[in-house]
């Protein structure tokens, strides 16, 4: 069985699994990292949104063999470690403060998407606009969208 190695939430992991198994299943079924959720498996619902080298991506649509040894994967479990201080990431705190979650199934992906969005607009030298919020593709079937919009802006201010 082929071996694959990459960095996951700050630690090196090595797995024995077929090349074409998508990273979501390597995380969930092989490594037991269940923060990223399955909602579609085809890169449309965004429930599994995580970060690769700091940018948002969907592990349901990446073969494990496509990762390089030095690629840094961050899931919701590793997000607090990317922010200064011992507590949660400011975006997670904003989510808690705004009481965004209902069932919570999509929320790890929503938080990861929000953090990546803030980083993206900062790279572009600007702040989040209504159009950016309209462009968030993560589905929330509970309909928490209005609170997500508030929390993203609050998290942006605290990041």
């Amino acid at each position, binding site marked *: 069985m082929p071996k694959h190695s990459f960095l996951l939430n700050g630690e090196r992991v090595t797995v024995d*699994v*077929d090349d*074409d*198994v*998508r990273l979501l*299943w*390597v995380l*969930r*079924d*092989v490594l*037991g990292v*269940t*923060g*990223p*959720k*399955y*909602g*579609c*498996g*085809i*890169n*449309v*619902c965004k429930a599994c949104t995580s970060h690769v080298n700091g940018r*948002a*991506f*969907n592990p349901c*649509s*990446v073969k494990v063999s496509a990762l390089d040894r030095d690629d840094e994967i961050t899931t*919701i*479990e590793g997000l*607090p470690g990317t922010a200064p201080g011992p507590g*949660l990431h400011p975006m*997670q705190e904003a*989510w*808690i403060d705004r*009481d*965004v*979650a*209902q*069932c*919570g*199934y999509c*929320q*790890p992906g929503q938080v990861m998407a929000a953090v990546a969005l803030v980083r993206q607009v900062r790279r572009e030298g600007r702040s989040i606009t209504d159009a950016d*919020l*309209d*462009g*968030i*593709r*993560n*589905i*929330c*079937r*509970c*309909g*928490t*969208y*209005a*609170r997500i*919009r508030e929390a993203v802006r609050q998290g942006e201010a605290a990041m």
Partner: protein
Amino acid sequence: MSETAARAARPRTEADPGRRRFLGYLLAAPTLAAAADLSLGTATAPPALALPSGPQPAEVYDLNDMLTDATRPTANLITVVVHEDGTASFELPRSENGQGIMTSSAMLVAEELDLPVSKVRVTLADARPELLFNQLTGGSNTTISTFTPIRVAAAIAKQELLAAAAIVLSAEVESLEADAGVITAPGGASVGYGQLARRAAATSTRRVDVTLTDRADFKVIGTPHNRTDARKAVTGRKEFTLDLQVKGARPTMVCRAPTLNGTPVRVRNKKKVLAMPGITHVAKVSTGVAVRGKTFGQVIRAVRALDVEWKDGPVAGQSDADVLAELRAAELPLAVPALPAGAKTVDADFTFWFRSNSALEPNCAIADVRTDRAEIWAGLKSPITAHEEIATRLGMTPDQVTVHVVQGGGSFGRKLFFDAALEAAEISQKMRKPVKLMWHRTDDSRVGRTHPMATSRIRATYAGSEVLSFEQRHTSVVTDNSHGLGELITAMSAKLPVGEIGFAQTIFALTQEVPYHYGLVDQQLDETDSRFNTGSMRNIYSPDTCTARELVTDQLAEAMGQDAFAFRREHAKDDRARAVLATVAEVGGWGRRMPAGTAQGIALHKEYKGLNACLVEIDCRPATVDRPVRDGVTGPRVTKVVMAVDVGLAVNPRGLEAQMQGGIMDGIALALTSSLHLRDGHFLEGSWDNYFYTRQWNVPPEVEVVVMPDTTGEPGGAGEFGVASTFAAVACAYRRATGRTPTEFPINHRDPLAFKPKPTVPPIPQSPTNGLRRY
């Protein structure tokens, strides 16, 4: 009897002087355990047997009265336990799927026990067959039916803690103060609940009585509280069924037929698929061919590789138009009343297409079936019925089967059924291995339950400024009620004010209420065609019937030359209705000038012991409608929503607001974008890039929910309550913005498909590999 009189006639015992005492139990247990007994609890207004012509059945006895009454005989089994670590725990015999009932239940315990909410641990009870009807989560009934028993159990616990503390502190019980889990005597000596938990425990079970906290003294109830699982949810630590690690329960999926509910005849390449990497088992089951393996990725590949001979399902070859023709053939006639001279008629006819009630968490379950016992884990809103049916399917006695209720990733009616749990049990038995079953999203969308397609016809007559009659004939594909509600209705039928009219008609009669004085009101349901996998979606009939009614209400107002808001206010049956209407009109700026192609809409809804009104603004201008978006539908944009909601007493106003916001997003989707298309025996929509539930680009930039002050002292329902009035208000706004009365919902159903349908063979798509390039 008017609505107001009906309410006033109910006993308002807790507010009475000489406060009402409730009976409960102390249970023999290692630490303090108190249970509630409602055999002498608050009575619901008895249904009037001879109904005057004015009120509809739902006005005197509605679905929630039935659900609440059905829980009464067994409510004494609701138990609060105090532990030595100073916490209290409560096993809620309901299903949490995001509604916030674990939080609100913790608040009820905290209130009566004088303990911080953070020290109250609420978990979900396993299926408990002895609870009979008291473990069904539906009809937005949880808080209505558990409000008193939970508080009684907690109050008894506190009473016993005080009695135990009096001995420990050598003080009179009446002199003690309980606060935040500590009991203090006048001299300042104190003792914590944890230290009293054993001392206060009963050695034999006995009845006790207790007085509940006066409403005026509520410190927790009625105060906004964040969800108790908020931190877990945003750190990835909240565990759903698929996240559970049950020993040996490996990823399992089912290969399904190309036509809805088709069945497998034989597998042509079982050996080849078994030899694929990671695959451990392949088994033909009643619903398809199950595959078990090491990772879901490998199982997906194996499902796609299966070569199966199928027997067609019962709707093979059928399409939307065929079902519509069937509904038309089943429609009941409208009875034309004798009209006085000068009376006029408004006739309307609406079609509501199939809609998917998929949650974001797909159908899933874990099953570990051995020769002599079985254990099941799933999100289940009717676990007792699930437990019975699973035992039957497995050929076991009920006591050989344990069913664990896991928190669900959304339900919207879907988890009233247990399709995945039953299927997982069958598969595990056949494979002789534990399985973690997950439906692929494509199966969940195409084969999972749908909200039935329906037509709603209305004939209203009027003369001058009076509405003389209002008839509504709702004709629907059969809504499956086999989740336990049917049995409940049978058991309660003698009490119901509707006579022998069948399950669906009973539910219809107990949920439908026209909140306006419209003269002779007559609403009837007829059902046809039970070949589909159906269920309710965040409310049973009302989003459709309310939208039809409110559109006709706008037409009546127009015909009489009246403003849509003023007309509603004048015809509303009670003050609560007028208050929510006036609130949204004021907060939302009703009647403000708006550019052509944009407009406001307003609607009113009454259900679940409450009333709400919704005001929306919509933008139907081409520049908005035609905004480009990848793999999505834009369409008209709702730019503002103001909802005023009166549920009586809001236990957790923040949770209520969240439920209304969610209902708003559902209402927008139902009006504008989300439906299933039946073509040639299967539904075309295969994922979230085909089924257009509200997305951020459809979300109103302004959403405001106003929680009205307590009007009744009793909690009403919340979970489904926001959908109907939003759906209706969006439809009314669209009509005013475009000048066209929409007659089909969602309005885009007959537009050219906004997606390319995925294949049906293989039944599920392979995951793309573009995730590093495309986000």
